[in-house]
């Protein structure tokens, strides 16, 4: 397996990603004979930018459409509830957009259809016993199942308390419903209300602040709000300086 990878690298030692990587890194390599690892990242024979092959036919390219803003797990109704609930957890304010405009609900939808939603890399073998809280999650349900149940129960709780669905409630009423879950004031047998709320809360932060690659943090607005520069190759020039604002970059910027 390792051999295969090596072979591919050999076939394509001048891949654009390598050049871009070095270009973005901000490292001064001149004057220092780099052995070892960094040396191996550089194109062989000391080639530089000028040897870059001419760009292929320049066709007018339109900005990419947001094809990932569709659903792979939620029903439209579930999606609406998640969009409304995450917006209360992380609302739009003077700092910038809230969860809805950051695409957090799309992020959660996509995540639920992957390893995280299936608890694929976690120990899910029987027997299941109720443990102490310090022993961590001991349920048999996967996150996607917890979301299904949690969203249904959220809706039920809204209907019995306000006779309306979550998305139709006022912001104050929505907060009240979420608080009931957060503080375990809802009587559920299948899942822990506060456990579901915690899951929703952390997923909201993940959606607001992960690389836009995952369909949240739209246009890096989550990062911009808190002056987080995203994925930069080097901070050598600012590390010992006073606070510095830097325009953010995403992982996309590291691909040639």
């Amino acid at each position, binding site marked *: *397996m*390792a051999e295969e990878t090596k072979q591919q690298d050999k076939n394509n030692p001048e891949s654009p*990603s390598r050049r871009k*990587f070095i270009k973005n890194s901000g*490292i001064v390599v001149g004057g220092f004979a*780099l*052995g*070892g*690892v*960094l*040396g191996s*990242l550089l194109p062989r024979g000391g080639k530089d930018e000028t040897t870059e092959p001419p760009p292929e036919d320049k066709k007018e390219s339109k900005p990419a459409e947001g094809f990932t803003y569709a659903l792979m797990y939620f029903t439209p109704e579930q999606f609406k509830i998640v969009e409304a609930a995450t917006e*209360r*957890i*992380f*609302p739009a*304010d003077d*700092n910038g957009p*809230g969860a809805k405009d950051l695409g957090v609900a799309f992020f959660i939808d996509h995540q639920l259809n992957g390893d995280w939603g299936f*608890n694929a*890399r*976690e*120990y*899910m*073998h029987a027997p299941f*016993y109720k*443990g*102490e*809280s*310090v*022993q*961590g*999650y001991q349920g048999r349900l996967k996150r996607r199942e917890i979301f299904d149940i949690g969203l249904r129960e959220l809706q039920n709780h809204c209907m019995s308390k306000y006779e309306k669905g979550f998305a139709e409630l006022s912001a104050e009423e929505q*907060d009240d419903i979420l608080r009931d879950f957060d503080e375990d004031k809802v009587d559920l047998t299948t899942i822990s209300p506060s456990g579901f709320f915690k899951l929703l*809360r952390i997923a*909201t*932060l*993940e959606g*607001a*602040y*992960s*690389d836009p690659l*995952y369909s949240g943090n739209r246009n890096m607005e989550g*990062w911009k709000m*808190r*002056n*987080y*520069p*995203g*994925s930069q190759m*080097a*901070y*050598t020039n*600012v*590390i*010992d*300086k*006073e*606070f510095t604002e830097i325009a953010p970059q995403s*992982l996309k910027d590291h691909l040639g």
Partner: protein
Amino acid sequence: MAKKLPKVDVVIVGVGWAGGIIASELTKKGLNVVGLERGKERKTEDYFMVHDELRYAVRYEMMQDLSKETISFRGNEKIRALPMRQYGSFLLGDGLGGAGVHWNGQTYRFLPYDFEIRSKTIERYGEKKIPEGMTIQDWGITYDEMEPYFDKFEKTAGISGEENPLGPKRSDKYPTPPMKSTPALNKFKEAAEKLELHPYSLPSANLSEPYTNPDGVARAACQYCAYCERFGCEYGAKADPVVTVIPVAKQTGKFEIRTHSNVRRILKSGNKATGVLYTDVTTGEEIEQPADIVVLTSYVFSNVKLLLLSGIGTPYDSKTGKGVIGKNYAYQVMKGNATGFFEKEQFNLFAGAGALGMTLDDYNGDNFDHSDLNFIHGGSIAITQTGQRPIQNNKVPSGTPLWGKEFKANSIKYANSALSVSGQGSSMPFQHHYLDLDPTYKDEFGDPLVRITFDFEEQDRQLAKFMAEKCSGIMKEMGADHIDSLKELGPYDITTYQSTHNTGGVIMGTSPDTSAVNNYLQMWEAENLFVIGASAFPHNSGYNPTGTVGALAYRAAEGIIKYSEEGGMLA
């Protein structure tokens, strides 16, 4: 029937820091070594897309797949141990380089006090100072004997640092100068000096400048990109086994690494190991690899598990305190800290390096008088600037709700204005803290999981409170407008990240009655079996353990070479 391969001189189980050091030292001396690694191959080029907090830090890209194997845990013997189904308290490594790839690089030497902890505690305070059930013991080696090995590891890794004003004697200075300092670190330094404490730059495996080590391996300097712990280094600037010791071993032509090879048993005949049995996880095939010498370098849990499953060494019995395999499991008391919120200042907290920090030892080991304190030992205190990645760092002053308008506003307001000063408390062993095999839960092969029985004790609660007070004092001097600090340690909770500093289980010492290995980490009960790692620590100090693991690995390598020539017990 397992396929049987031709015999080799040495087989190593797990190729991380310990395995890599053993491989490089032994192959340099001409021994033929096979390294069996259960995970995949790793290289620097894997990390082009490494600045991805979700994938690496939150979804644990580089960690052991818990669906295949985990540990089980209980706070005490009265309750049922349950599996650690999801990550929390510590993160298990996997793949070439092991946890050595995704560490921060904070590289300390344990104190002279640590190696002779029982003798020195009794000498200064009397035997009554050691509470009932606390099973501290001397390590069977002194700091002076360890010093050359610390020096060797620091030079291999290229540790960047400056002299610790309270540190023990060194034969040489650090091979590279300290990392750059930052306004936040300077603030800590000035405050600590005003309080007449002794701050110094945290010894770092993230190189401060380009460096060529004694093996001829050249590496570039750290770029302060802020993605160290939980990530691999795309520059090779952070010392890890893949960019230091493993290529040296490979270059000799005498080191064969087999990845995807999960060792299941150590094979034995009489009181000697004869090789190992492993599964090629890509085919499911069982393979026997005979060897003259077997070296376990597979982290605390797998070292203990393999010995217990293979019936080698006397299992520990917590009722009697007799037996050794699984004994003295210890951890780290991490929660004694203080966070300060600054109204008028912002710092470049998005930037940093895993081991960029300022630290002090005034409250570590026995550097201060414990006569009127209800605990022994202590911990290092540090401020670090490792990079405040936005998903996992949302500090808000106490009283702020954890969601909604106010949470969002405060978490953004303080994103670059909250600093923490943290105590890294030592962890003392107790008779009822240990590792054994779980009676219920199994791994992917149907073998039992390792079971942890561990909780915090009065020693830990007192220590954490003490550290939190000292940290708050420094933070106050730093001028924070609002300070939050630990009030009560509470029980050990496996769900919140503390540190991947698990220790003990195959401890070193002077007698087979009280220890599993001698001071060359050679098994008392199987002379051609060496067990290396923090599993050898009889207790854990108030520091990150890797520096001491590296030093012990060099010590063991020397022993293995001697054993390969002369045989017999080395100590």
